[in-house]
């Protein structure tokens, strides 16, 4: 599995590679949380999310957008997630804690998940995604 930070002038762009789709989505979920809140994130609380979409890229964008929403309105910082994708349905068990200004102020807000250059693909080596976060 790998997570690559690709230089993008205005925003934050990632390329992720993983063996499974579930691992791919988990990895970018963690990257999103790190961009916003930094590295020091614990997972004592649990929250579930269920998303259904029309295609795999939309599933990814919709899932991460929902995470942005939950995180902001509930004041939750997530450390990791267990993700299960069946077809175009996603279930996520999100592990996190309440926002702590002292430990969670290293990052920057993500305004949205861009559809530009958004792709989820598969080849013989596994899965790959490209994504841009608007900061």
């Amino acid at each position, binding site marked *: 599995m790998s997570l690559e*930070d*690709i*230089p*993008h*002038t*205005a*925003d*934050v*762009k990632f390329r992720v590679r993983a063996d499974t789709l579930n691992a791919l989505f988990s990895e970018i979920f963690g990257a999103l949380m790190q961009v*916003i*809140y*930094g590295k020091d994130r614990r997972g004592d609380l649990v929250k579930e999310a269920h998303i259904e979409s029309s295609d795999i*890229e*939309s599933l990814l964008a*919709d899932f991460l*957008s929902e995470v*942005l*929403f939950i995180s*902001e*309105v509930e*004041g939750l910082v997530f450390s990791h997630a267990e993700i299960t994708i069946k077809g175009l349905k996603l279930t996520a068990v999100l592990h996190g804690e309440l*926002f702590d*200004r002292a430990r*969670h*102020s*290293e*990052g*920057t*807000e993500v*305004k*949205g*998940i*861009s*559809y*530009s*250059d*958004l792709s989820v693909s598969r080849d013989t080596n596994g899965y790959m995604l490209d994504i*841009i976060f*608007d*900061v």
Partner: protein
Amino acid sequence: MIDGVKRIGANDWEVPIGFVPGMRVPGRFFLSEALGRILEPGAVQQLANVATMPGIVRYSLAMPDIHWGYGFPIGGVAAFSLDEGVISPGGVGFDINCGVRLLSTPLTQTDVRGRKDLFDELFRSVPAGVGAKSKTSVTARSLDGMMIRGAHWAVEEGYGVSHDLIRCEEKGYMKAADSSEVSAKAKQRGIPQGGTLGSGNHFLEIQIVQEIYDPEAAAAFGITAGQVCCMVHCGSRGLGHQVCTDHLKILEGATKKYHISLPDRQLACAPITSKEGKSYFGAMAASANYAWANRQMITHTVRQVLSKMFSIPYEDMPLIYDVAHNVAKFEEHTIDGRRMNVCVHRKGATRAFGPGSPDLPPDVLSIGQPVIIPGSMGTSSFVLKGTAGAMEKTFGSTCHGAGRLMSRSQAKKRLIGREVAGNLLKEGIIVRAPSENAIADEAPGVYKPIDEVVNVVHEVGISQLVARLSPVGVIKG
């Protein structure tokens, strides 16, 4: 210069039809030779992509702060005819009505230089950064007020004076706002964030007017040499971000429904007159109003701090002007000799209406619209005036800032926030931010040289320099 781009003037470039398949109009951008050397091919590609959108009028434009964004380039301007054209959230951005305002004060440099206590107090008073919550309790009713009447609501609630509305684009609110098109989720995000600064490139800066280039315009705007001003740069916060997210999804479906073929999903759009198009515009205007209310609330906090610290009356700190950078507007422009209503999208671009234009404050009508251009951290900011040239060339638009050069990941690798802050302090500039990363991300070196960018708009004639301001200290989100 990038292959395929043609030079058509000293600072004027054309991206011909055919640069990407399906272009309906050429692309046009304004750049000096020096800035041309750092132009990203991706930005030109995005400019060309916008030119493929239905109903686009004359050119797909970009200002000299052009850089690679997503969908539209940052610095992009595009106008669409009402009957055949589309409206696109990608042409506005997630941060609807990210914009900037400039407040003047009767203070001078000696009053504020080195005043760490001033910046400590501002940092304490204006919520900024990730997770920051409003200090005021905004009810559902207040939120509705913010979305429908923007800065007008804020002034009615005691966050300002009526003169603030005269000196604000749209007089503080867009009348077409429709809060019923704003989702419950977006409203939920908007309630706790009234009067907050946000993060990233949002800031509150105390500046000194260093140089006056146009004494007549400066006097009309209310700017004098040596004066202390406060610049506030922020947008519609989580409410706007959610509105964009929600409507992008709806418009993705609409793009298919109306058989619109696009080179980039982020250009998702719908015909202006369609149900989906009207719904987005109503929600966008509501978000824009929220941003104006937000900037007005922050203005009030700044006035309170300065008033208390320096014993100056609240009324002695008038607003110079407030402009939006990310917004779509219905405007009337002269195109090929006739008056035409169009939907102008400005994404990282500022309105710069010339003398005699509608929506200008009466006391600057003969001068042109004040244009506020924030510099990057530690560098100058500028006030310009809108021109007839802008009306003719760019649908009354100009640049919005310096434009980035370096990505945030590169910035963090090459720069250390503590060192950047230390260097700025040596120049007498105080920086307060929630983290060191916030400082490294926004260091002066990561942006194009602002002087070069404003010189281009001045040379091209789409706005004219009025004054230069230099920073004394900044609060960063």
